[in-house]
C-alpha cells in the first residue's frame, strides 16, 4: 500500500524536477494523441454524419459492424498496424514502425469507430423539426449540414472526449507499434507498463497520476468550452 503514497510524492518530484524521461513521455503522449484525434475527428465526423443523416441499404449492418469495432482490443489494432508498417509489410517503405506516426495511425483506427458511431447516434437524434426549420429559413444543403453539426456540438464533444479517453489510455498499440523507445516513442502508458514490469510500482503510480491529470485538464477545458 505504501507505494501509493510514494507514487504520489514521486509524481510531484518527477514533474518539479523536470525529469527528462517523464517530460519526453508526456510530450510524446500529447503529440501522438493530438494527431490521432485530429485525424479521427476529421474522418469520423463526416462519416458519422453521413451514416446518421441518410438512410440507405445496409445501414443497419454497417452500424452493427461499427458498434462491434467499438470494442476493438488495442493489441489487435497494434498487431494489424504492425503487419502493415513492418518493413516486410505493404507500407514498409515508409519506415513507420517504431515512430510516433505509426502509433498515431493505430490510435486513429482505434478512435475512428468511436467518433463515427457516437456522431451517427447524435445526428440520428437530431429533431426532425431542425431540418424543416433550416429549409424554411432558406438554408442550402451545405448550410443544413454545418448547422446540424453545430446544433449537436455538445454531443460531438462527448464523442471526442470518449475517443480521447480511449486514445490517451491505450497501451497495446503504443507498445507494439512504437516499441517503447526511450525519448522517442515512450508514451506515459508504455512507461507505466515498463516501470511496473521493473517492479517500480511507485514510478508507475506517479506516471498514472500524471496521465489522469492530463485527462482531467482536457475535460476541464472542454467543460469550460461547453459553458460558453
Amino acid at each position: 500500500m505504501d507505494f501509493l503514497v510514494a507514487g504520489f510524492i514521486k509524481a510531484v518530484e518527477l514533474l518539479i524536477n523536470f525529469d527528462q524521461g517523464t517530460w519526453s513521455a508526456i510530450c510524446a503522449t500529447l503529440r501522438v494523441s493530438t494527431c490521432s484525434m485530429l485525424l479521427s475527428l476529421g474522418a469520423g465526423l463526416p462519416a458519422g454524419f453521413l451514416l446518421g443523416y441518410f438512410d440507405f441499404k445496409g445501414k443497419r449492418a454497417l452500424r452493427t459492424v461499427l458498434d462491434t469495432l467499438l470494442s476493438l482490443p488495442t493489441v489487435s489494432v497494434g498487431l494489424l498496424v504492425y503487419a502493415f508498417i513492418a518493413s516486410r509489410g505493404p507500407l514498409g517503405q515508409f519506415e513507420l514502425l517504431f515512430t510516433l506516426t505509426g502509433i498515431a495511425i493505430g490510435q486513429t483506427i482505434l478512435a475512428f469507430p468511436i467518433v463515427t458511431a457516437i456522431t451517427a447516434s447524435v445526428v440520428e437524434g437530431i429533431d426532425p423539426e431542425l431540418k424543416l426549420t433550416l429549409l424554411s429559413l432558406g438554408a442550402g444543403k451545405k448550410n443544413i449540414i454545418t448547422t446540424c453539426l453545430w446544433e449537436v456540438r455538445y454531443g460531438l464533444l462527448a464523442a471526442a472526449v470518449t475517443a480521447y479517453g480511449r486514445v490517451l489510455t491505450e497501451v497495446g498499440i503504443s507498445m507494439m507499434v512504437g516499441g517503447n523507445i526511450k525519448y522517442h516513442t515512450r508514451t506515459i502508458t508504455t512507461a507505466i507498463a515498463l516501470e511496473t514490469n521493473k517492479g517500480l510500482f511507485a514510478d508507475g503510480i506517479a506516471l498514472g497520476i500524471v496521465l489522469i491529470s492530463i485527462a482531467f485538464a482536457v475535460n476541464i477545458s472542454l467543460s469550460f468550452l461547453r459553458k460558453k
Partner: protein
Amino acid sequence: MYRKKLISTLLILAILLSFASLSLASDKSLMMATTTSTDNTGLLDYLIPHFEQETGIALKWTATGTGKALKLGQNCDVDVLLVHAPAAEKAYIKKGYGKDRREIMYNDFVIIGPVSDPAKIKGKNISDALLTIKNHKSPFMSRGDDSGTNKKEKLLWKNAGIKMPDQEIWYVQTGQGMLATINVAQERAGYTMTDRGTYIKYQAQQGGKAPLKILVEGDKILLNQYSVLTLNPANCPRAKYDLALDFSNWMASKSAQKLIGDFRLLGQKLFIPNAKQL
C-alpha cells in the same frame, strides 16, 4: 468572426506541429532490439550516450524478450540485436537471418527463493535443485515468454532430465519481464531463475533487504552470454549493416568493455565484459 478565425488558425497550427514533430531525424541512426535485462538494469542508459558521443550514431532500442527481438530482426524491423541465447543465435545465423555474432559480456543465472527455502535447495547443484523443487511442488515462477532467460530455464529442466512442467499447478508462467517475474515470486514466496544483473537491481530496489535470496549459483551451465548480432544483408538489404557493424565493434572495443566492467549496482558488477579482441 474573429474568434472563428483564431480557432481555425490554432487548429491548423496544431495539425502542422503534431505532424512535423512526428518525423524523426534519421540521417545516422540505428534501431536495436534487445532483451529486457540490458534495459531494466539501466546498462544501456549508461552505455549508449558514450556510444552516440564517440560515433555520432543515434541509437534507439526497443526492449523485449530475446525471442521477439530475434523475430523483429528476421522481419527486418530493426538493424541490430543485443541478445542472450547462444544456441538460438547460432541457429539464427545458420538460417541466414543473422550475419556476425560478437560475444560482448556475460553474467550468470541464479536460482533465487525465499530465505526460509521450503524445498531446501540451498547449495545443491542446479539439476538436483530443480528436481527437489519438482518433488516438493514448491511454487516456481517462469517467465514463459520465450525470452533468453526462458530459453535457458527450459534447457535446465531438460538437462536435469525433467519433463517440462508446463501443466503443473506449482509451475507459474508469468509472461512478463524478469523484474516483474521476481516480484511475482516474492508475492507467492516461490522460486525463480534470474540473471544476476536483474537480481542485483531488484535487491537495490528493496534497499538490500530483499526477501528472496540467491540459493543456487556457480554451475557452468548457468553462464549467461550476451552477444551483438548483425543482420544478414541478404535477408534485410535495407537494414543498416555498416552502422550495425560499427556498433558491434564499439561494444567489443576496449573503452566500451571497460565501461561495462565499471557498471555497478550496490557495489556489485552486473556484467562481466568478455569480448575477444580481433
